[in-house]
């Protein structure tokens, strides 16, 4: 009996040691990594100290600090440009990443700021290799919107790289637009359009 017990103990101990040595990315699950990001962003949006137009810059920088931990913006920049990414140099890539991240901030965070009473419910999760899709239901004043987050395990944990609502994917939509612009006006033209769009957002008032 004691023999069996000691064997079991050894097995458990080994199991524990192995588990604790394995990478954190392997054990963490996508929903649990997404939750603090969304909660953190909502906490700032609903926080009255950061409300209003005059607080916009401060509020946005706080939100983006959290977003940078939960979203993989450089992956998104690569994916959204597709083949064009290969044709531009490091400096252009850096510029594009900045502009596109700013656009996502304006579009996604800007839209979230309209929804001040929202609750997010996590309804499902699919994992396939290094990719995952987390399904959520966003409820805001009686309206329910299914928002799915597409995530990738980039080595530093699960990061969001696309958002899907009713089959419509944010990144794919921008990808189609960018492709059309690059085709006609080259990369330089795209940069110009991005700069104009971001300027449009910074001129408008929110909330």
């Amino acid at each position: 009996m004691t023999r069996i017990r000691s064997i079991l103990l050894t097995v458990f101990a080994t199991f524990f040691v192995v588990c604790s040595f394995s990478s954190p990315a392997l054990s963490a699950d996508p929903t649990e990594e997404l939750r603090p990001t969304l909660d953190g962003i909502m906490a700032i949006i609903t926080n009255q100290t950061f409300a209003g137009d005059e607080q916009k810059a401060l509020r946005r920088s706080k939100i983006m600090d959290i977003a940078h931990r939960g979203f993989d913006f450089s992956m998104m920049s690569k994916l959204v440009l597709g083949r064009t990414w290969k044709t531009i140099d490091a400096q252009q890539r850096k510029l594009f990443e900045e502009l596109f991240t700013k656009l996502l901030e304006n579009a996604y965070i800007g839209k979230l700021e309209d929804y001040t009473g929202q609750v997010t419910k996590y309804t499902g999760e699919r994992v396939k290799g290094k990719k995952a899709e987390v399904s959520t239901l966003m409820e805001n004043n009686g309206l329910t919107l299914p928002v799915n987050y597409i995530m990738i395990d980039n080595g530093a944990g699960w990061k969001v790289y696309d958002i899907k609502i009713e089959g419509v994917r944010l990144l794919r939509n921008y990808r189609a637009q960018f492709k059309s612009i690059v085709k006609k006006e080259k990369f330089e033209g795209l940069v110009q359009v991005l700069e104009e769009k971001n300027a449009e957002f910074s001129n408008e008032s929110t909330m």
Partner: protein
Amino acid sequence: MKFSSSLPALCLLLVFVFAGCAKQDSRTASNLAEDEILAEHVQDDIDLLLDDAFDDWDDNDDEDISYPDPLEPMNRFFFVFNDKLYYWVLKPVNTVYTAIIPFDFRVVIGNFVNNLSAPVRLLNNLLQGKFADSGVVLSRFLINSTLGIAGLGDPAFVEFGLTPKPEDFGQTLAVWGVGEGVYLCWPVIGPSNVRDTFGFAGDVYSHPMVYYVDDFSVSAGYYVGSRVNLLSLNPDVYEDLKKYSLDPYVSMRQLYLDYRRHKIGDQVVLQKSDNSL
């Protein structure tokens, strides 16, 4: 609105021919362009990532993620036309409409309009072999027409939890294997494709309105009225699209493609009411 009895058959025949041809043409053209690009760029890490992510992100081949759009110049013309129509006519009309008619009453109007088109949904559920859903559509119609007072209320959902099962003839054609064909942006009607254009015609033809009132202007007026009401319940949809996109035309095309494919694939669309866009 008079239709000859052979119209549905003609429509069907045309849709098969047209969609088939259109698809083939665009394939050969874009395949040539595709080969050129592939010759220059070997598949790289980006493509690998885009590949095979989740079933619907198989856009290693660019053709998969965008519509064949050989009629882009014409479509863009009508897109601009619709845009002007929106800002000059639809939006002012909607502003007045929204101011005069209270929200609750607009929901009631929406319910009535949706209930009246139940036969279209029933027909298409049946044509797609969805018998359980057909039963739900029929139950909803019977409950809402009686308890809901001629469809003004939606007790079928509120009291019985029966969710709408929206199916249209465009989806039926897709289920039957008809290809999308090229993208089309129609004046007034908006984004569509060859298949959905015939689908739209089929829906109009199977709508009870056409049989009740034998007058085109009444049917057209009914259509425009129902669209204004739908807009009044979802006022931000178009303006958000314009606000967040860099090329609204392409954005709408992509949105239409993804949304229609999503609906055809019958992935769970969370829709509590027919009144949402």
